């Protein structure tokens, strides 16, 4: 653990000892700045029942710079693109060093509950979401079933 800032150590300990409901974050054994994350699809959202895998990396500048987070599980969501990049203000200009991995993951979980098609990253998905929400939600549910449930890829 040599060279790892106290802040990261403390955050990691707390993530393991008091995990947030529906979220797990485990540091990689070879790189303690790299976390394997899973987020359970929130209740009453089209992602319910799915388990979404993400990767989270704390760059050298952390906490002055935001963590880098990406979805590894395919997801049909207007603010998440084909390769899993996430459009979330706190990961960009709204980042504050007073935020933590825990708060970031909670915000991502909240983003799953409340997609924001007005600030899209995946334009085609956002268009669908705005034009025909029911159909978009149906597709999102299908994708959840296909990619985020046991046996899914």
């Amino acid at each position, binding site marked *: 653990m040599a060279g790892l*800032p106290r802040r990261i150590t403390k955050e990691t300990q707390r993530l393991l000892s008091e995990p947030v409901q529906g979220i797990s974050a485990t540091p990689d054994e070879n790189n303690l700045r790299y976390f394997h994350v899973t987020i359970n699809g929130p209740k009453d959202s089209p992602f319910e029942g799915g388990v979404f895998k993400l990767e989270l990396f704390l760059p050298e500048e952390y906490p002055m710079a935001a963590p880098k987070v990406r979805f590894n599980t395919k997801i049909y969501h207007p603010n998440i693109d084909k390769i899993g990049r996430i459009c979330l203000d706190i990961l960009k200009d709204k980042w504050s060093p007073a935020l933590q991995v825990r708060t970031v993951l909670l915000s991502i979980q909240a983003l799953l509950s409340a997609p924001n098609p007005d600030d899209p990253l995946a334009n085609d998905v956002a268009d669908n979401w705005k034009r025909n929400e029911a159909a978009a939600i149906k597709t999102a549910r299908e994708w959840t079933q296909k990619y985020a449930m046991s046996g899914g890829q």
Partner: protein
Amino acid sequence: MESDDDYYEDDIDPDDYDDGHNFDNEDVEVDEGYLGESSVDARISSYNPDLGDDDPYPYECLSADKVVGLMNEIIREVNDIVNIPSTTLRILLAHFNWDKELLLEKYYEYEGNQERIFAEAHVISPLKSKSLARRKSGRSIEQACEICCNNYSSSFMTGLDCGHSFCKGCWSQYLCTKIIDEGMSQTISCPEFECDIIVDDAVVMNLITDQKVCRKYQHLITNSFVMCNPLLKWCPAPDCHHVIKVEYRDKRPVKCECGREFCFDCGESWHDPVLCMHLRKWLKKCDDDSETSHWISANTKECPKCQVTIEKDGGCNHMVCRNQACKHEFCWVCLGPWDPHGASWYNCNRYNAEEAKKARDLQESSREMLQRYLFYCNRYMNHLQSLKFEHKLYARIKRKMEEMQQLNMSWIEVQFLKRAVDVLCQCRQTLMYTYVFAFFLKRNNQSIIFEGNQADVEKATELLSEYLERDVTTASLGEIKQKVQDKYRYCDSRRNVLLRHVHEGYDKDWWEYIETS
């Protein structure tokens, strides 16, 4: 050519003009050309007093330190009226883009509710903050810094009036990141999530120990001050840190201490006679990948149905659009539909069909525009290139001047040579911009006169250039002086005639411009 000479003889008394001109040159020979330039301006306006710019254009060249002084002076001035801490005031002023009148107006408009003005500028009202500060200093227990998670005594913890405190180490790292990586200065806020209270300059200067970061911060502050202030402009020369301060904004040439002369309005090199607006368009045109787009428009045709771009790669004129959704069949020659052509396309008898004609006209005009652009661009580039070479000429002329001084001529006596190269460069620069002017010009009687003037300057300039480049090294001293002076004075006078004519045209709305895409 005859006609334009007549035109000038009618309007100006050439003798009168020449006298003034000679006098000017004697006067400014040692003055590196700058005074010469402004006296040209003065003459332009005295010739045409209703131009309204016969007054000299007063401006100052300031070092970065002086700009900081100016900034502090404004803070002091406002502080005399409103009496709030200067750190807070600086943030308020920055919020109002350094418009002190606007600040004062708002300050009194919100009389009694001045909290609002502080909130809008993202600062804690100085009236409220005192109590907060006192409360903070009362504590003396160990605290954990929320950023690094280490415990420190409260003396090592600090914060703004919003009450969020972090350790000094994290603060300093946070500020460095914002300043160096993100180039922020007056908009850095408290590190706390969703706290928008702005960090004032005293806090920044206190917490940053790295001199490099301090300098960058001060530069960013100065820069935002200059950018906000319409009467200030950075000298555009690379690595020059001077600022030009004017008394009123105008399209006039200013010259920085470093030697760069530029248009105060647009910041480009001084570009008389062309307008800032046209120069901007021109430079954009040159910058864009215009060659490529012109090649495309001149050498390809668009499918008359789906508009896809087509380059013909074989001899047959029976075109079938490859766009799978279109597959339109048409004739390459007349651009009309293929059907009526039958087998005898080479007698393409559909030439005047309405549709085909329209498509052809579009093609023609785009080719013509390319020709036109290339014509002007070529000449513009040519003078630009020559202007670059004239710097070599300066070196050569300098040697010649030293040589002449060894042959018993005084320093002042040989300055005519330098003046000649100055005039040469001025003429090249003017000529360069006349081609930009001409590019946008619609043809009318005045534009023909302009072209005549342009040809005169060009001819005179080339003669001067040739003489300075070749003969100056071989001819005898007395002969050189006489000839060089004659040539550069003629150049200068033709240049002034041209500029005056264009200026008069601006004044009397002679110029009509073409529409460009």
